[in-house]
């Protein structure tokens, strides 16, 4: 199916960026430069990705290129988690592990159960949805768990002093962390269709797909995102518990994030 947007359309849509710049100037936000850089950068990145995807998703190209794309995407996402949660010790390998686990669980289910055929045009976008949407929750889970254990050190040590193993002592804080990290995704899932029309479905409808077909695809994507978010946050949080306690059940010193 051919898209309806041509280069002139994209240029026309830049007027909306101008609106954002105007708001910034009007209210003295000093974000004009950042907005322009962000918009240009986004457009550039998307064009590069578009060209690359055209190559990768070519039906004649071996599927291994698609999986390599997914691996690269996962590595980038893990690095973003590391940069957004600098106070979390050892978060990079944990985020990699978390996204890998989420990929195995969710893509395994989607492809294993035959929901979508295993093709470049399904593997790459589904993995992108999975990683992109579970990234925020993974950052929240990692930062929140460190914050909980740091701010409630007295409680945690009181539990340890009673002879609780570190996994048991951390359990209440782990549960609170996962609840915090997962709640936005659960709320989004509840509100979908009523409050907002999500990206995949909107994109399909704009591209001319029958709305009912678009809805079915969106439902699968929502469940994929829910499953991957739950998997990634749980893996990162459980991994962190192992990292934040010594083998002899002591809580390691935890730093506050740098200001600013």
């Amino acid at each position, binding site marked *: 199916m051919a898209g309806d947007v041509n280069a002139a359309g994209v240029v026309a849509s830049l007027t909306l960026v101008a609106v954002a710049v105007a708001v910034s100037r009007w209210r003295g936000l000093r974000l004009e430069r950042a907005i322009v850089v962000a918009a240009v950068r986004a457009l550039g990145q998307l064009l590069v990705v578009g060209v690359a995807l055209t190559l990768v998703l070519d039906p004649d190209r071996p599927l291994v290129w698609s999986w390599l794309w997914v691996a690269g995407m996962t590595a980038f996402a893990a690095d973003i988690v590391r940069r957004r949660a600098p106070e979390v010790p050892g978060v990079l390998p944990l985020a990699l592990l978390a996204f890998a686990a989420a990929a195995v669980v969710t893509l395994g289910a989607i492809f294993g159960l035959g929901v979508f055929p295993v093709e470049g045009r399904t593997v790459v976008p589904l993995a992108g949805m999975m990683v992109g949407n579970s990234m925020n929750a993974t950052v929240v889970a990692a930062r929140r768990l460190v914050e909980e254990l740091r701010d409630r050190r007295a409680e945690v*040590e*009181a539990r340890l002093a009673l002879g609780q193993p570190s996994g048991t002592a951390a359990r209440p804080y782990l549960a609170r962390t996962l609840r915090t990290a997962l709640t936005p995704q659960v709320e989004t899932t509840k509100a979908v269709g009523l409050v907002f029309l999500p990206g995949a479905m909107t994109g399909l409808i704009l591209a001319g797909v029958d709305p009912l077909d678009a809805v079915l695809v969106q439902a699968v994507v929502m469940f994929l995102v829910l499953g991957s978010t739950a998997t990634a946050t749980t893996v990162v949080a459980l991994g962190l518990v192992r990292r934040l306690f010594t083998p002899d059940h002591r809580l390691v010193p935890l730093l506050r994030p740098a200001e600013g």
Partner: protein
Amino acid sequence: MDDVVPAGEGALFAFQAVSVGDPSAPILSAVTATVPATGITVVAGPSGAGKTTLLRLCNRLEVPSAGRVLLRGRDVATLDVLALRRRVGMVFQQPVLFGGTVRDNLRVAAPAADDATYARALELAALDAAMLDRDAAGLSGGEAQRACLARTLVTQPEVLLLDEPTSSLDAGPRRIFETAARSLADRGVPVLWVTHDEEQLRRLADFLLMLARGTVVSSGAAATVEGQPRGG
């Protein structure tokens, strides 16, 4: 100043050349001392002397960078840490209660125990059994700290570490807590009590371990330590 008991046999805890922290700025520096297996041993000294660290070495919430800590002659590093922490109970400076009722708190320490066991622990901590159903968040400071003591006692520890447990309490609740601790010591549960309050030291100490800047400056039976007569 001589040690109260020789290291090894007979001593409850023996610290053998124990250091903690970076050698350039140690928290404890080559501390050698013993703690007897009876009565109340008060660990005293100015702020920053390393008192709390010394206490935390006894249940391995802290580990030495050099030296050994022995419990009844055995290096605590060789003992199962979870079992050690149930043998060596600890009450912290600020009362830390978990969410729920007092019973819920005691259950964290001893999930399989029954109400009679919980009531007995409360009684030893000078609290009434009727407290079991009270919301832990609604307790006064003194009650909360004694509930913490009861929670520790429900694991039936053979020694108690008390880290300035009454520093946030008024005179009345402080005396109740002290009486409860004295009664436990008299029943054969030795107590290590950290304080920087000299009056409290005089009231409580059977034995004394004075620290300053990470080293032991004096130790021995309280009546014999110079400048620290045992008060009534």
